[in-house]
């Protein structure tokens, strides 16, 4: 194997497990610290807090386990890598799981971090708070599943890669999903933490906040779906051999356009929803007005991500 090819392929092997382990260990650390502080605050709720911490940490570890799985898959393909283009395409598959996994692990730890103080405040309401935490964490973890599916698609098509256009197409596809889900996932982490904290403040708002977390989470996750659409489209277009430097430039620019465009929309949309969840906990009577206002603001923010999606689609259709 040529040296640069070996270098790129080795980086592709270590990236999924390394970056996801980084995110989940840092997140697990801050969540455990918060759990210890909550036990200090309310020692009688110790059993519930420890159980919540165990469930939450196991959920955070999901992204590391899936990253490890992709690492094994890429390691198995080592002998079948023939040229540098296939190594670059493999790097795309590895980045598609590594970057989302890192941010997802950190963001789902932010939900767990606010859940344990909420249980310390409301020990008799612990079971419903745990349910809410599992729901919000699973909403956050959707990008890891997207990344896993995309990695499998790319790894299944690596043997077709013969030109530079295809190689950079698969790399752009992985980068688009990897960068594109970072912002919305971070926003979802802010939102989930705020929802769990609000239930700790006002438990009567539970059923309203449950509905609101599903609806608000779906709107925050809309940019994720834009990124997924563009990356799957790029991966589909890269299956047929494209010649020339122009093809790779087109793929990279289309991927980065949507990938970078969703960051701001996701982060701010999450901040809006987080503030709204706090307000709902303060004043449950005004739920309708708050949620309608939040929907409107989030819709307007998401429109900006929609423009980047349109531009990417226009670039790719040429």
């Amino acid at each position, binding site marked *: 194997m040529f040296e640069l090819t070996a270098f790129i392929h080795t980086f592709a092997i270590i990236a999924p497990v390394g970056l996801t382990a980084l995110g989940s260990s840092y997140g697990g650390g801050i969540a455990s610290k918060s759990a210890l502080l909550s036990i200090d605050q309310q020692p009688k709720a110790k059993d519930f807090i420890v159980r919540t911490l165990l469930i939450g940490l*196991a959920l955070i570890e999901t992204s590391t*386990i*899936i990253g490890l799985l992709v690492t094994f898959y890429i390691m198995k393909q080592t002998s079948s890598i023939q040229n540098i283009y296939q190594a670059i395409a493999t790097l795309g598959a590895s980045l598609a799981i590594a970057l989302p996994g890192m941010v997802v692990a950190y963001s789902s730890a932010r939900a767990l971090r606010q859940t344990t103080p909420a249980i310390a405040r409301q020990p008799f309401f612990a079971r419903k708070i745990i349910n809410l935490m*599992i*729901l919000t964490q699973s909403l956050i973890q959707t990008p890891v*599943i997207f990344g896993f599916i995309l990695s499998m698609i790319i790894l299944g098509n690596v043997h077709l890669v013969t030109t530079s256009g295809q190689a950079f197409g698969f790399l752009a596809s992985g980068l688009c999903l990897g960068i594109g889900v970072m912002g919305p996932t971070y926003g979802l982490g802010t939102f989930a933490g705020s929802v769990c904290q609000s239930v700790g403040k006002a438990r009567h708002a539970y059923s309203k906040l449950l509905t609101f977390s599903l609806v608000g989470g779906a709107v925050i996750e809309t940019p994720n779906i834009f990124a997924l659409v563009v990356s799957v489209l790029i991966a589909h277009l890269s299956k047929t051999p494209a010649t020339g430097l122009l093809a790779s430039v087109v793929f990279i620019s289309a991927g980065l356009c949507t990938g970078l465009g969703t960051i701001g929309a996701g982060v701010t949309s999450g901040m809006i929803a987080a503030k709204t969840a706090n307000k709902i906990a303060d004043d449950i009577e005004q739920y309708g007005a708050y949620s309608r206002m939040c929907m409107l603001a989030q819709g307007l923010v998401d429109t900006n991500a929609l423009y980047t999606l349109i531009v990417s689609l226009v670039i790719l259709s040429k």
Partner: protein
Amino acid sequence: MESSINYDINLFKYWNIDNPFLLINGEIVLMTWIVLGIMLVTLLIARHFLSKRKGIGRYAVMQIVKMFMDTSTQSIGRFNFNHCTFIGTIFLYIAYCNLSALIPYVIEPTTNLNTTLAIGLISFAYIQLNAIKVHGFFGYLSDFFKPFFLMLPLNIIGEVATVASISFRLFGNIFGGATINDIYMSAIGGSWLYESVAMFAGINLIMAGFFTIFEGMLQALVFTILSLTYLTIAIQTDDGQEQSECLS
């Protein structure tokens, strides 16, 4: 895990249809039937305990059933026999599938994507049918046009993503755990020294305990709670919300 024998069954061989999409994985079907057989045996034992007047077995069975009833009642807000049995069935089936790796020569059916996707689709269909039953057909359709009508394709993709996310989460976790256990077994295998140290120091127990028992039960719980929450949201009406608040 890696076997050279081909277990695929083609039901359409007679008509010369050779599509990989239509192949049936014979090994996983066999494992599923083994798991179903174990479930049947346990259910018969539970029935035997229930037929007695008293005893610790009867108490244990009643507690487990009561746990499912409490979980579904607390989440939905009122007791519904169909929802309770649905939740119990899904939890028990996934838990039995995940724990079946403790039996020698049996691999978990949940390490195959087809099984988890099937469970996800069953849960999805049950939720959508109940939503149609509660809201009516047109009320159900109008939910797709909220917040505004441009969101229709995104709402549909969101529903499909729900199925994909719950099935792939179960598959990824169980398959990842099984892969790690396989690599661990192949690492210590072949040397009697390593094997005896791993057995007597309790490392085997820790690996099986974490990756099979803890992870398997946790993923079954997560799948059940997520299905129950999606069901609660789907069949929620305005007066239903008040009821669940009163219970809390």
